[in-house]
């Protein structure tokens, strides 16, 4: 079974530029998550999708971050314009269903490491 795919793996941009990350979840997984992991910290949930609808985006900085999941499969996360403090690893995860029921394990992709200079 293929895992969660993310691209690019690394990205370096200057502040005020824009950037986009792509995620392809495990086939059949209805729920998709984007996390931000700043160096030295644990992952923080940015947004959660159930199929193509947003379940939770309370921690997404909406003035500069946006995310979409068209057709309920792939997802993109965009930052525009980027700030220095956005330097982090952006992790995508997927699960069969929403919430944290015992059989709804989250599977994580390898992440995209973003450096903003």
């Amino acid at each position: 079974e293929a895992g969660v795919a993310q691209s690019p793996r690394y990205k370096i941009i200057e502040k005020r530029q824009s950037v986009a990350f792509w995620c392809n979840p495990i086939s059949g997984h209805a729920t998709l998550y984007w996390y931000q992991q700043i160096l030295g910290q644990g992952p923080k949930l940015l947004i959660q999708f159930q199929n193509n609808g947003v379940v939770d985006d309370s921690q997404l900085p909406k003035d500069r971050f946006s995310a979409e999941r068209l057709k309920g499969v792939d997802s993109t996360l965009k930052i525009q314009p980027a700030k220095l403090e956005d330097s982090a690893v952006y992790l995508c995860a997927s699960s069969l269903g929403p919430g944290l029921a015992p059989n709804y394990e989250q599977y994580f992709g390898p992440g995209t490491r973003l450096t903003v200079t």
Partner: protein
Amino acid sequence: AQSVTQPDIHITVSEGASLELRCNYSYGATPYLFWYVQSPGQGLQLLLKYFSGDTLVQGIKGFEAEFKRSQSSFNLRKPSVHWSDAAEYFCAVALGAYDMRFGAGTRLTVKP
């Protein structure tokens, strides 16, 4: 305030020695509890989880964890560490279906 604390930023153990990684949480009720491992350049992999029932939970790769309600703790243990266990370990807690929060992580170094 709700929080997850991993008191040890970095731990070094010798190969073959036992391991215990600490995790404490501060929630009003008993949350769901998880341990994840992250190897360099990799995503997080679930080691084990606790939802209810037996407070001693067995996971993959020979890990286990014990939930202690009185201490608000969920410590991860392994009786004999292998060099391949060197990684970052994250404790996570969730109170409710959509509110999973991670600790800051503990980096494990294994000495030959």
